[in-house]
């Protein structure tokens, strides 16, 4: 009996079209009438009603084709029928519905949601921090109002056969510009001086930026309190807000005095007239104290018209509309004067480096007065959040596709009941958007509460983060949110929505390519995790420099007293040298680990820039620095000042001397003869040994008193010296340190950096392993039956669990194989390029990092392996 009912068939046919929003009721009425007409025509030709309906509906074409054609007209029709607002309301309600489904889905799959949200939050927090940092870093010194007209005068010079760019300028340049070059409104000399700052009884190591009084008119450093023109006073000084707090605490610094001594030689007494307001943005110049340049001129008796001397930099402010090339052409006229006065440093040409639009590769200008952003640094910084983001996105994709198994029925039913592919895509994308939004919110909290303060501490730049005033910031955040949502959600959404509902509901679905993608993503994740762990381990091992290379002497018995004036040395030595706890005392102007100067050494027509330390007699024996050949500067030899030099082993090596004793070289127009060679002393805990030479000074140039104790108890020696100093110089602050702590600041910086990298690599490993955990959880249900059957057939449970998880070990090994050589050779090249220590880390680091990753990965999947081992075939296969 034929049960076909035409009305029911037409109603069913129409219902399929009704689910598509592009077809209005009138359209459907019209199309239904068409179908009925065609059925009527076909039955008139003798066909049965059922066959006629089948043929007519078939000839009508697919709903997808009709939908696609009607969609082209959809918005135009809505517009002409004034139904746009209704459509928008509907779409918003659908969005609300998707959001609801998305939130429910997040709440339902707690472990998976946690893994995704944790990874994305950390990655997005990194993005926010790096954005905030780069925004400050790349916008360096943009806040100066006259930035377009402010130029740093710099010069080109040919050294060692290549054109170099330098930021320091001849001493006499500024007055010459002022007198001879029209179009320049202001000229400012800037000179950095390091030394000690005495505030009452307290001594600080610090530096002062001496500048001409017009500096605060040229640059935009607003005064927060005190006199608006602090530099107009001969002894006037201005402090930054941070320096005011550092040196004076809660006391108002305005009106207070501050004494500055440079290497125990020159003294400048200053009165604080103002405190500057916090900078409105990051600046490449980082001074704490500003003081008038004339104060330095009188303290040092500087000849301001000397073309042979140097200042750290010269800044000019041009008049509005003045072409900088005109100023450069005028500067060229001064090149001859400079070169005539300075035979050792013949300038090729001057050039101007604008503050707002710096010279090309400004970061390469040696001794540039203000730091310029370095692209490698920017690149490295961007790489970190991108790597983290990649880890999290891969996690999301892997887990989302893995979760398909659980949602297959939902997808099948949605499709069968009329859900179109676009709706499914929209639903999955909105679910992902919900997840990304939650992550972004948490990321904001993480960065605000933890990462930004950490960044602020790690780097010296003041981060200026005021998101409420920065529309760009919110655009970037929105971009990151949408970008992450689309990148992470697109593939799973397209993949899931493409599944065939018939196969899904029949239970014969195939997920082609799923495993391959998962494996590629997982291997990539572990490659990234290995990268970060290896770099972290190299930093940690590379930072163990002191244990590896040694100091070149024993620092434990040494205490170094910093003198306010050279005249303090003689009485101090006379007072302490008979003390039983003091074995030897020596004077020095520079000191190993403390400070040294750079000098150009000329030999056989070749220039080399090396380190130079000026030390007193018995310096080497006081320090305990091993003499490899020749002698030191003992009084017994006499006459060493200005003629003799002691070099380190690295110096002799650089110049290729087999027998350095008796060799000669020229530095600062003085000829020196090498009388001794010492073992390489550590000058910096991270940098490689550098060539240095020592020259002899008399006691009247002493800036340090080097005291060798008779035991290693330098703490007791320090305390004893303090007592004797206070008796000798009552009211003068005692300023001394133990030599063993001379590198503490560097070690701390390195340790901070290592800590930050260790954190990052730990996070990368956690995110990767969470992805592994998520993937293993998704796959376990599918594996239960397989394992159960194997067990029934007599397989060993442990072997089965191992077999299931062995692929993860393979993936980890692939990650290791890719990352290890890249990291090793990359780091060797980078560290060699940067002039750091050579890497001497052996295979331990590689084996160690592999074992760490494998162990953490094993822990991540151990639960699943255990479940598989314990699975009961009776339970699993009961339903089969």
């Amino acid at each position, binding site marked *: 009996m034929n049960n076909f009912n035409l009305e029911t068939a037409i109603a069913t046919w129409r219902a399929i079209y009704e689910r598509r929003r592009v077809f209005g009721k009138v359209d459907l009425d019209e199309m*239904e*009438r*068409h179908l*009925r007409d065609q059925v009527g*025509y076909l039955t008139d030709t003798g066909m049965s009603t059922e066959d006629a309906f089948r043929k007519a509906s078939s000839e009508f074409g697919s709903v997808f084709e*009709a939908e696609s*054609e009607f969609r082209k*007209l959809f918005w*135009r029709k809505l517009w002409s029928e004034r139904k746009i607002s209704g459509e928008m309301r509907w779409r918003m309600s659908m969005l609300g519905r998707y959001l609801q489904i998305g939130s429910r889905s997040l709440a339902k799959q707690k472990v998976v949601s946690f893994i995704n949200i944790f990874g994305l939050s950390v990655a997005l927090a990194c993005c926010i921090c790096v954005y905030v940092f780069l925004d400050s870093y790349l916008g360096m010194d943009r806040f100066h109002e006259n930035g377009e007209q402010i130029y740093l005068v710099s010069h080109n010079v040919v050294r060692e056969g290549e054109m170099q760019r330098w930021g320091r300028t001849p001493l006499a340049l500024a007055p010459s510009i002022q007198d001879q070059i029209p179009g320049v409104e202001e000229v400012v000399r800037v000179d950095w001086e390091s030394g000690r700052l005495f505030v009452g009884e307290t001594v600080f190591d610090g530096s002062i930026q001496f500048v001409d009084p017009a500096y605060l008119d040229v640059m935009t450093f607003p005064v927060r309190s005190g006199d608006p023109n602090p530099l107009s006073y001969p002894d006037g000084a201005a402090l930054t807000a941070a320096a005011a707090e550092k040196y004076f605490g809660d006391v108002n610094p305005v009106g207070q005095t501050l004494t500055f001594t440079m290497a125990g030689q020159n003294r400048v007494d200053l009165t604080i007239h103002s405190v500057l307001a916090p900078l409105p943005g990051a600046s490449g110049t980082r001074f704490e104290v500003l003081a008038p340049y004339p104060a330095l001129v009188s303290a040092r008796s500087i000849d301001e018209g000397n073309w042979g001397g140097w200042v750290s930099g010269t800044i000019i402010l041009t008049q509005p509309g003045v072409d900088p090339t005109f100023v450069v052409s005028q500067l060229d006229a001064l090149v001859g004067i400079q070169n005539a006065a300075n035979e050792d440093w013949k300038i090729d040409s001057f050039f101007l480096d604008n503050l707002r639009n710096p010279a090309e590769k400004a970061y390469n200008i040696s001794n540039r007065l203000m730091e310029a952003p370095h692209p490698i640094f920017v690149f490295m910084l961007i790489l970190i959040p991108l790597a983290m983001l990649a880890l999290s996105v891969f996690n999301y994709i892997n887990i989302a596709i893995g979760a398909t198994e659980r949602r297959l029925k939902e997808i099948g039913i949605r499709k069968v009941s009329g859900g179109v592919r676009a709706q499914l895509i929209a639903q999955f994308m909105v679910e992902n958007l919900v997840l990304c939004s939650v992550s972004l919110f948490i990321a904001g909290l993480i960065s605000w509460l933890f990462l930004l303060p950490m960044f602020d501490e790690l780097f010296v730049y003041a981060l200026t983060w005021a998101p409420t005033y920065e529309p760009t910031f919110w655009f970037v955040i929105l971009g990151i949110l949408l970008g992450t949502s689309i990148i992470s959600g697109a593939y799973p959404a397209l993949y899931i929505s493409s599944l065939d509902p018939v196969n899904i509901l029949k239970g014969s679905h195939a997920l082609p390519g799923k495993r391959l993608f998962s494996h590629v993503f997982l291997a990539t994740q572990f490659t990234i995790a290995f990268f970060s762990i290896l770099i972290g381990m190299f930093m940690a091992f590379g930072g163990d420099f002191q244990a590896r290379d040694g100091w070149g002497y024993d620092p434990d018995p040494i205490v170094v007293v910093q003198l306010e004036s050279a005249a303090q040395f003689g009485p101090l030595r006379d007072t302490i040298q008979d003390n039983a706890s003091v074995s030897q005392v020596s004077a020095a102007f520079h000191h190993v680990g403390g400070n040294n100067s750079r000098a150009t050494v000329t030999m056989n027509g070749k220039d080399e820039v090396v380190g130079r330390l000026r030390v007193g007699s018995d310096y080497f024996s006081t320090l305990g620095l091993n003499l490899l050949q020749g002698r030191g500067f003992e009084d017994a030899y006499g006459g060493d000042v200005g003629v003799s030099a002691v070099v380190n082993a690295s110096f002799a090596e650089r110049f290729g001397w087999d027998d350095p004793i008796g060799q000669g070289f020229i530095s600062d127009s003085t000829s020196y003869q090498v009388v001794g060679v010492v073992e390489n002393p550590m000058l910096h805990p991270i940098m490689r040994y550098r060539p240095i030479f020592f020259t002899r000074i008399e006691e009247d140039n002493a800036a340090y008193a080097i005291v060798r104790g008779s035991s290693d108890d330098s703490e007791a020696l320090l305390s004893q010296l303090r007592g004797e100093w206070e008796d000798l110089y009552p009211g003068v602050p005692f300023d001394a340190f133990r030599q063993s702590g001379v590198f503490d600041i560097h070690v701390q910086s390195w340790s901070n950096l290592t800590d930050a990298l260790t954190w990052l690599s730990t996070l990368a490993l956690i995110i990767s392993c969470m992805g592994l955990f998520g993937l293993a959880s998704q796959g376990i249900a599918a594996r239960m039956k397989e394992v159960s059957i194997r067990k029934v057939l007599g397989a060993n449970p442990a072997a089965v669990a191992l077999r299931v998880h062995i692929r993860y070990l393979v993936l980890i090994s692939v990650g290791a194989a890719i990352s290890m050589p890249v990291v090793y050779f990359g780091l060797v090249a980078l560290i060699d390029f940067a002039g750091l220590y050579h890497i001497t880390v052996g295979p331990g680091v590689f084996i160690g990092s592999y074992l760490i990753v494998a162990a953490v990965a094993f822990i991540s999947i151990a639960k699943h392996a255990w479940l598989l081992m314990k699975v009961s075939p009776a339970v699993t296969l009961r339903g089969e």
Partner: protein
Amino acid sequence: MNLSRKLAGASFKPLVLSLLSSGPKYGFQIVHTIQILSEERLHLPNSKLYPLLHLLEQDGLVEAFWKPSESGPDRKYYRLTESGVKSLDGIRAEWNWMYSMFTQLWNGEVSVA
């Protein structure tokens, strides 16, 4: 011989307007007449017919009206408007010109220099 997709696509609008020039017609009538005229070599799919009719309606070239039917629900008829008539004149001139050009070419009445 079936028409190429592009040529068929280009001919739908002139065909529909031309058919409507002889009086109001409903969707099935239009499709059915084209099939008979083309001896089943040209098929105007319904998925294209109705969007085309609606577009012509929005452009003011045709207007629609519902008319009761003796057999079943009402039918929606389309007829040419004045603009539709003018548009058809223009289209007809274009196709005639094209036809005459090809005729001359293929009859060897034009020698190419």
